[in-house]
């Protein structure tokens, strides 16, 4: 496993996607690379997110706005679920 970040060109090569697509994904806030001097650095988990966004766009016929919104809502949902799990476990421990 590598914890390295990818440059735009490396990212496109590893993900086998078009540079233009990655730029669109960044412009819609779907990918959020860090800025190193004046070029982008993508964390490795951006790769899974990019491919996921592409599948959703293709299979569900979503546009970039739709993908961005869906991903954001799903992440919010996941955070809430984790929070509920945590609180439920805590209540159980306080009750025992």
């Amino acid at each position, binding site marked *: 496993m590598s914890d390295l970040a990818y440059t735009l060109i490396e990212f496109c090569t590893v993900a*086998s996607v078009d540079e233009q697509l990655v730029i669109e994904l960044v412009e819609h806030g779907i990918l959020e690379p860090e800025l190193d001097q004046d070029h982008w650095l993508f964390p490795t988990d951006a790769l*899974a997110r990019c491919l996921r966004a592409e*599948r959703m766009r293709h*299979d569900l016929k979503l546009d970039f706005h739709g993908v961005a919104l869906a991903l954001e809502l799903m992440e919010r949902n996941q955070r809430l679920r984790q929070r509920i799990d945590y609180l439920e476990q805590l209540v159980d421990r306080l009750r025992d």
Partner: protein
Amino acid sequence: MDFKDYYKILGLSPTATQEEIKRTYKKLARKYHPDVSEEADATAKFQEVSEAYEVLKKEDKRAEYDELREYVNNPNQFKGAGGQQARFNSDFSAENGFEDLLRSIFGDQGNFSGGPSAFNAGATRGFNQRGQDIRYDLAITLEEAHSGGKRSLRLATPSGNKTINVTIPKGVTQGKELRLRGQGEPGPMQAQGHASAGDLYLKISFSKHALFEADGDDITLVLPVTPWEAALGTSVEVPTLGGKVNLKIPANSQNGKRLRLKGRGLSRGLGLGTGDQFVMLKLVNPPIETETERAAYEALKTSFNFNPRDTMARQV
């Protein structure tokens, strides 16, 4: 190949309009899409639904399919639409006809059931020279998340069982995916040039811990204390993921009070610091077993002029 009832898969009547088929497909695709769905068998369901839609969405393919379907359902009294009976000569079988139909839609790559999944084909679109990515869930302990660790995993993959060694990085959190490059399925044999293997993704979850609960990078410990420890204050030794530390409980602490041990949680990743450990006090009343103990509670009763339901009385 077994004949499949695509109308049943979509939950539609065979007389459904093209518009109804499209609408139903879109709804089911959102429900079962593996990137969106929470259903356990989402990938298989999505694949089935997509296949059904691919066949039914075009009028001419649908007509061909309908004919086959009628033949399968009523093989003896089949008349054929438009006098096409001649097509179904003696060596005709519905299975072969069905396979031919699928081949005419999906081509020879076998992107229908039995071959590589339509979903995976979509996922690797544009770089078909690569092997498939595979995904597994991996439950790790909070100790592993805190200090990092190594695991040897036995995985049952489509191309057989294999054992891989995984380094669990310090500070990995729930829901995060670890990517192991090149540990997925091997690239297709027939591919020209570089047929690199796919990747392996491990989705991290935390297994239940005997003492701690994780909330993001923070850890909570519920600490049982006696009423006098909470009232008088004390110092107790408490466990943390990094070993035992002393915690000062201030006087007049109430049940549920949260105390913070700064930096005793999980790492937030390189250079981002560490979460905290919270200690939540849980007051435990000792049960009365002797006359001395009863007298002690009686003494409390007479010493205090205290009604915990005061505010409640004022609300009614």
